[in-house]
């Protein structure tokens, strides 16, 4: 697997983590749990953006791996 596709995979994982946590937030009954999950979401957002940028850079460097 190329570096590019590995990073893309991680990006997908982060997205999946984010959606899992969102769905847990929606279904949780406990206030404290909801609060903690909501704290986690923006941090994951940041990581997601970083990885997205990195994917862009890698695609730019190695044209042949372009595309998702």
């Amino acid at each position, binding site marked *: 697997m190329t570096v590019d596709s590995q*990073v893309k995979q*991680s990006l997908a994982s982060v997205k999946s983590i984010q959606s899992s946590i969102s769905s847990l937030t929606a*279904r949780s009954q406990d206030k404290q749990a909801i609060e*903690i*999950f909501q704290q986690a979401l923006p941090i994951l957002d940041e990581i997601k953006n970083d990885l997205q940028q990195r994917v862009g850079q890698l695609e730019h460097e190695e044209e042949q791996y372009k595309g998702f």
Partner: protein
Amino acid sequence: MPEWGNILIRSISLVVIVFIVAKIFGKKQLAQLSVFEYMVGIVIAMIAANLSIGYNIPVAHGLLGLMTWFFIPLALSFLAIKSKPVRDFIRGKGTVFIKDGKVMEDNLKKEQFSSDELLQKLRKKNVFQVADVEFAVLEADGDLSVLPKKQKQPLTPKDMGVTVAPIKEPQTVVMDGKVMYEPLATAGLNKNWLETELDKLGVSIENVYLAQVDGYGQLNIDLFDDQLQTPSPQEKALLLATMKKTQADLELFALNTENKTAKQMYTKDSQQLQQVIDLVKPFLSD
């Protein structure tokens, strides 16, 4: 009227009366907090029994006795709620049997307890050695309450300094193959959600004996058919595993890349993800 008719009518009306009396006394009578309340229960039962088949006892006499034994204890228990001295007088107070790890022999004698009986009571509380007890008190209802020494108490998450997620009561959403709408609504879910979740597990509602939703909206089911295996919810464990894997991957990227800014970014991100893992971990482990 023949005698048996008389008995039948008496019995049926007494069933109703006794049922009402039991309802009014409520759960407390069942707990039998004191010897007095225990005796009241027996006396009422005996009056009812005698009145039921003793057709030569006038009904009025029986009812009078029943009412007396019903209203006086009821009045006393209301008084007991209002006033502490009355409460202590009626219910009695607990007697301290073990204090600071030492047996109070005088108190034992006062309650007519032998050392054997004390040991027996302790064993019922899973204490086999008096030295393990810091404090023990004989409650008014005859039960021994035991406070073991701190080092003999079960280990708790607090002792270990572990943070644990708060727990919410589960809601039973399916009973005997029927959907319970009220608990479902309490959990903030609806029938559509339930059907989707059951579809995911590949079972229909009719085959479900019991289904409960925990505080995180996860469904646990028990089927009528015990041969079938049903998976327990894995979502949270899976999420935690994905987070850990992604965190490890980010660390790996940081090590592999030669681009300095990318290295920094990966390191920062992996640290942040670790923070998130630490944050949500107590909530994701069952």
